[in-house]
């Protein structure tokens, strides 16, 4: 089948969306951008292709609503098993790479011990893995580096203690290996991994679901043809895309928001390093835009910095800020100053949640200024980007929108992080269509 790919190469994450000929999204994929857009692009594309397979599986079973609990459970199990297969493949790669690092003077005495310890760590990691992808497991992140990294460090500490090997040696080989592994996306044939996962699921459940298997096999046989690809986002120029395959992320976000909510007239996107206020017409064409200039305070990275300062995970900030009933007034939106302000207030004994709530408000205040410069907020208003996933930011935004513009429908799609990629995929579809109809792409 024909597919159209949109890839959004953001400063923090790279997103891919796969669309079919009927403007339906069939797959989404995301990965961290690293400093290597080429890899990020491949990984995100592969993730989207994997996701698309699951859409095709579901289609084999009919409409989404009609899928029975049994089938749904089966597919979810299949996905977990597939992820596990992928994870194990990368764990093998990580182990191999780590062992290669055990060389040189530093390891002259303890090299063999380190190798034994590594074998033990990776054995434990492999044993844990199925539970990590179990039906009730929650993962803070889906990125290999995050999942494997935190467990490796914990297990290595234990093993080092028991085997009386300096922990920093185990840390050293890991540090040297993880980037290489991360930049080497799983190589194995996807179909094979799906089949391995299928085997795993049927073994575990012991079910003889041969018709389910057959449906999956049929979906696996469908070839996904990449008909046209459009790249957008900060990394777009570094890719070997020709001009007709590149669109500005402003246009992609405008169109993506329109695709998600056709009545959208104003879009706010808060990404890793920029904030965009975009006005679109009823067909999704951009009429005006404003972006932050010279300074990326008030963007996603600002929250990342605050999270580091507070020794917290990025995803923990919002929930903590939501606990605040008395947000602190923080006027400074300079990232570095905000760090100073944060420490100062902590020292004065202010509650962490109140400070965090204040910082979230500061970001949104900054975004409000950018929106107003782009022409204000018209109904409907769509909020996109990574920060749209943060409840505390959303709460402040809703307050400020109401105070400044009154009742406005605010749309936030749970998949809003894919807005730019979605717009890109639609541009790809239109370009291919234009080409087919002999129009300018």
């Amino acid at each position, binding site marked *: 089948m024909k597919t159209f790919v949109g890839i959004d190469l953001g400063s923090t994450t790279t997103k891919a969306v796969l669309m079919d000929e009927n403007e339906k999204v069939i797959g989404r994929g995301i990965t961290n951008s690293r400093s290597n857009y080429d890899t990020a692009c491949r990984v995100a594309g592969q993730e989207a292709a994997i996701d698309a397979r699951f859409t095709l599986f579901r289609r084999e079973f009919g409409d989404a609503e009609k899928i029975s609990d049994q089938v749904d459970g089966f597919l979810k199990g299949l996905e977990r098993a597939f992820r596990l297969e992928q994870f194990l493949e990368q764990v093998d790669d990580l182990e191999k790479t780590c062992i290669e690092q055990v060389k040189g003077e530093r390891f002259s005495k303890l090299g063999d011990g380190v190798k034994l310890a590594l074998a033990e760590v990776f054995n434990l990691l492999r044993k844990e893995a199925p539970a990590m992808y179990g039906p009730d497991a929650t993962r803070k992140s889906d990125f290999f580096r995050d999942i494997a990294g935190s467990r490796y460090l914990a297990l290595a500490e234990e093993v080092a203690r028991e085997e009386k090997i300096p922990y920093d040696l185990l840390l050293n080989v890991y540090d040297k290996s993880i980037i290489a592994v991360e930049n080497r996306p799983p190589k194995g044939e996807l179909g094979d991994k799906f089949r391995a996962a299928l085997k795993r699921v049927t073994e575990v459940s012991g079910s003889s679901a041969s018709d389910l298997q057959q449906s999956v096999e049929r979906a696996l046989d469908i070839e996904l043809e990449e008909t046209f690809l459009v790249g957008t986002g*900060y990394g777009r120029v570094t890719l070997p895309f020709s001009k007709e395959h590149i669109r*500005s*992320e*402003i*246009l992609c976000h405008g169109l993506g928001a329109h695709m998600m909510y056709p009545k959208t007239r104003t879009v706010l996107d808060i990404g890793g390093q920029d904030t965009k206020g975009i006005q679109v017409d009823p067909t999704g064409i951009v009429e005006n835009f404003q*972006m932050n200039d010279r300074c990326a305070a008030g963007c996603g990275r600002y929250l990342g910095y605050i999270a580091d300062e507070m020794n917290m995970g990025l995803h923990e900030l919002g929930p903590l800020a939501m606990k605040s009933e008395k947000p602190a007034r923080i006027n400074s939106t300079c990232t570095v100053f905000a760090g100073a302000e944060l420490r100062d207030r902590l020292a004065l004994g202010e509650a962490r949640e109140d400070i965090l709530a204040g910082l979230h408000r500061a970001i949104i205040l900054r975004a409000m200024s950018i929106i107003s*410069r782009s022409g204000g907020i018209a109904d409907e208003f769509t909020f996109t980007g990574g920060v749209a996933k943060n409840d505390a930011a959303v709460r402040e935004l809703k307050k400020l929108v109401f105070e400044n513009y009154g009742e406005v429908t605010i749309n936030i799609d749970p998949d809003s992080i894919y807005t730019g990629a979605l717009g890109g995929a639609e541009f790809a579809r239109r370009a291919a269509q234009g080409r087919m109809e002999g129009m300018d792409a």
Partner: protein
Amino acid sequence: MRVTTSTAQTTDVIKDASMIKQKQMMAAHYDRLTSARENGDKVVSTFVPGNLNELLMCFDLVNNLPEVNAIQNGLRRKSGAFVMEAERAGHSEDVCTYVKSDIGMMAKGNIGPNGKELPAPDVLMLSYTGCFTFLKWFELLREQYKCETIFLQTPYMADGKITPNMIQYMVKQFKEDVIPKLERISGVKFDIDRLREYLRKSAKAEDDLVYILQSGKHVRSPIDAYFGGIYYIGPIFGAFRGTDDAIEYYQFLKNEVDQRIAAGLGPVTPDGPMGEEKYRLVVEGPPNYTNFRQFWKMFYDEGATVVASSYTKVGGTYDYGFRHDPDRPLETLAEYCLGVYTNRSLPMRIDMLVDYINEYQADGLLINSIKSCNSFSAGQLLMMREVEKRTGKPAAFIETDLVDPRYFSAANVKNRLESYFQMIEQKRSGKGVAA
């Protein structure tokens, strides 16, 4: 290596004529300035908007323009260090970077583009035309050089028109203050016939300048009226208005433009003749000088030509009909100062931009807002909204600085420009199968 088709060759030769001429003029001018002391010439410092070159020449004064020095330092990548030098001396980050470049240059020995020291001025001629910074700038220079300052007050065109009162007010200042002081400082007696002769020459060059700037109306414009325009306005905005050199320069340029029109060629860029004209823009605001070529390249690489700009009117709005008139010598100088772009109200600036978009068949308006220039930047967003509303054409807003390299963020500017060009494309190709 140059393209060697016969047309390209002729064009190149003639293109070089105006460029070589301009280069010679600038070199000669800076040499005259830096050897003023040896030659016994007296020096006046003054500003581009409201520059009274013809009057100053009547007193044999050599015209030194600090703004032009700052631009030269920006283009030569020297302004960054000068700006920092001025900041070390206590000038805030928000101060106009022309001023800081000038102050920093003085602190570092006041070396001109020809590598020789620029002389201290004998008089500061401040014709105030809408930019408050000029007052403060010359206060600083007065402190530095301990020399006399002449202050010509130009009434602001708040109501959009020049009244007889305004002209009288200015003529009175010429007669009672400006001319007597210039006579005393220079030791030269004022001769109104000499002034008339210079004004006659000014008008001749001004006719050609307008012809050149308005050639942007051709679809497939032979000029870039912003990046190229900066060069084209040089002689008439600087120390050459009223000279034979200026007349000759504009004749060369006019011939080149005519040739390009006849051959159906676009503007000449630093990378050679420009390719296809995909976007026609009107630009508001001064350019960035520290990354001038890089900035320009972002336009011509994408096929964007600036067909008209407001910045090329800061030293006179000749395309609106004004010419220096030898029959009304002092009145005409007053009208000149009153009419410059910096002295125009926001509604007048909006009218001008709307006219340009319509008359030059532009695709839209681009505003380059200058970080350190409040006098230009204040109100630009409102202007943009209004122009959009009245023309129905898309507009965009980018931000850079005049001569402070720290405020030129190439990736951001490029990103915005490309978005804007694609936005134009998308609007143009209609609502359906866009892009």
